[in-house]
């Protein structure tokens, strides 16, 4: 009887695992090396900067938060990476204002970005946990455009706060209602029912918009309130800016709201809103910046909707970066180098970085805000050292 010999001779080694391993090894060694080399060549930094950076270690900064400022923050990350010769990489993930706040509170990220500043309770909680406060550093401003799709009507329809509230509430049901006609005497308004579109996901845009509606109407303030996600009295929910835009664009008679950046990017008609001074103002970069050019408290935690500024657009808001005062108390920041680079990056954002805002359709910070921001940043500490002062 022949016993089959189970020897190495007739064991065939499968090719697949070997290939897989080889590919992985290749990918993990050769390619990153070439990427590093490529990255280093990209810069043409002045000699002094290079000298200053010499000897500093590579640092990765993790941040997350609002989707509205995400294009700007990630563009800053790109630019800053080039500025520092590939040394400092800022990874920003757009997960929503709510997500930014939560991950910031849980200390899984080094900084968060939000369109809704931290509440007093949240700051108290942080003060208890870390012995220091959390700063809301304004980094840009954004406007919420009131978007609509009314056949025959182009951009520039005029609204007031209480008209908007009543439309969103259902008290004004058609587009040719007398109150809308009053505000727009020269426009031919059709007898079309108003279809409300709102966000179904949590969003800073919603927070700013509902904040304005709450200021415009006591009813709204009491019944609906303002937050990143509210219980809308009526209308269809769509996901994300693009969801609302998509519905508005395809539904005659629709009324919705989008971040201005998004509305201009996608050519959606939006209207002007009458501000506190009585002027109908179209949302654009100038009127957005103007809205923020007001008296700001030292911690800049203020809502600038219904702004007192004369040519400011009334539905605007700051976008903030949240950062712990005592950087060493943030579990996500593990080394002094990380703290230093984070502070440096934040300084850069509010000063040199503002150059990049307007080409991307984001409003520049007004002087008042920059001053406050710089003041707050100078108070950042690491293990007691005023690291904020150092990196100025």
């Amino acid at each position, binding site marked *: 009887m022949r016993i089959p010999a189970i020897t190495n001779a007739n064991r065939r080694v499968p090719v697949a*695992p070997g290939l897989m391993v080889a590919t992985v090894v290749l990918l993990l060694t050769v390619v990153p090396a070439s990427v590093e080399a490529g990255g280093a060549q990209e810069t043409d930094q002045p000699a002094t900067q290079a000298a200053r950076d010499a000897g500093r270690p590579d640092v990765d900064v993790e941040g997350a938060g609002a989707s509205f400022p*995400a294009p700007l923050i990630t563009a800053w990350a*790109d630019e800053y990476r080039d500025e520092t010769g590939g040394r400092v990489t800022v990874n*920003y993930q757009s997960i929503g204002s709510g997500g930014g706040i939560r991950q910031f509170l849980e200390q899984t990220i080094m900084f968060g970005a939000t369109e809704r500043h931290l509440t007093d309770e949240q700051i108290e909680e942080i003060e208890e946990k870390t012995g220091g406060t959390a700063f809301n550093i304004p980094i840009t401003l954004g406007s919420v455009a009131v978007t609509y799709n009314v056949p025959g009507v182009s951009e520039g329809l005029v609204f007031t706060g209480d008209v908007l509230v009543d439309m969103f509430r259902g008290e004004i049901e058609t587009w040719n209602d007398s109150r809308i006609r009053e505000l727009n005497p020269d426009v031919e308004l059709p007898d079309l029912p108003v279809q409300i579109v709102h966000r179904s996901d949590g969003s800073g845009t919603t927070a700013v918009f509902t904040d304005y509606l709450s200021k415009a109407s006591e009813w709204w303030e009491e019944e609906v309130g303002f937050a990143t996600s509210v219980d809308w009295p009526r209308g269809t929910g769509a996901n*994300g800016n693009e969801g609302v835009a998509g519905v508005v664009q395809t539904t005659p008679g629709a009324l919705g709201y989008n971040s201005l950046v998004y509305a201009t990017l996608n050519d959606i008609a939006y209207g002007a809103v009458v501000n506190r001074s009585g002027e109908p103002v179209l949302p654009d970069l100038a009127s957005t910046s103007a809205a923020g050019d007001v008296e700001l408290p030292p911690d800049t935690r203020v809502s600038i909707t219904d702004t007192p500024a004369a040519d400011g657009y009334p539905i605007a808001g700051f976008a903030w970066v949240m950062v712990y005062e005592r950087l060493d108390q943030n579990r996500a920041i593990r080394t002094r180098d990380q703290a230093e680079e984070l502070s440096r990056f934040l300084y850069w954002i509010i000063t040199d970085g503002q150059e990049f805002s307007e080409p*991307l359709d984001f409003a520049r910070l007004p002087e008042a805000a920059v001053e406050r921001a710089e003041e707050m940043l100078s108070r950042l500490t690491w293990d007691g050292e005023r690291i904020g002062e150092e990196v100025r």
Partner: protein
Amino acid sequence: MTLRFRHIRDYAVRAVLVLCTVCLVAPLLVIIGYVLVNGISALTPAFFTEELGSPARAMQGRPTGLFHSIVGTVVIDLLALSFAAPVGMGAGIMLSEYSENPLNGPIRILTGTLNGMPAILMGLLAFSLVVRPTGRFSAVAGSVALAFVMVPIIARSVESVLRTTPWSLREVGLALGLPRWRVIVSTVLPAARSGILTGVLIAFARAAGEAAPLLFTSFGQNYLNLDIRRPMDTLPQRLYSLAISPYQEWHAMGWAAAIVLLLFVMACFLAARALSRAHGGRDA
């Protein structure tokens, strides 16, 4: 009930069955077609060598790509496999070779059950077990989540493959006086090698396509990162972000990512089929 009627009915049923088949198969071909057509234009060399960066890059026409996502997918999936393969194989061996064990029945049922559980629950589990205690999102957390997805698949396939190996193999080992464990390791496992590999490939392909468990474990990364203690980007999760973003250029990259994912899955799939056919033809 005439014969003629019965023949017509027979014919009609056949027509309906063919119609159903076409209705089922056609959408798949349509989907693959659309993915290829829409994505091919974004499959530039830059796609495979550049990192994502900001949307401004894409909008301003500067080079951008998903190199870091591809690398991240490979790293996280292989890491997950390294966690899942031993566990899955051990479970499969236990179910097949140690059938006298009283735990065998329940574990077999649980394996089958776990196989169909939503991957997002594995993500929640990995979040609670890895992200919360360590305080950060990391590639490791993502790998753990994917490993949870892979284990039942590997266990199930290893078990079924080992069961189909002929008993004579084990008899050979026993006849030589080998201890039980040696019989398994040296006679049964090598014979089932390609079948096991098939199962591993299938599990790998399945896990590589999962996005939900990675959303809150490995999080996401816009640049290349090889540190597994930090967030890392992967193709499926990045594809989701690109698809729901408002930028046209990113949508185009999303289609391209879909092509890459599809090709990857099909490659694993074809390899698994080729292996199982080879295995089937090679009767010990």
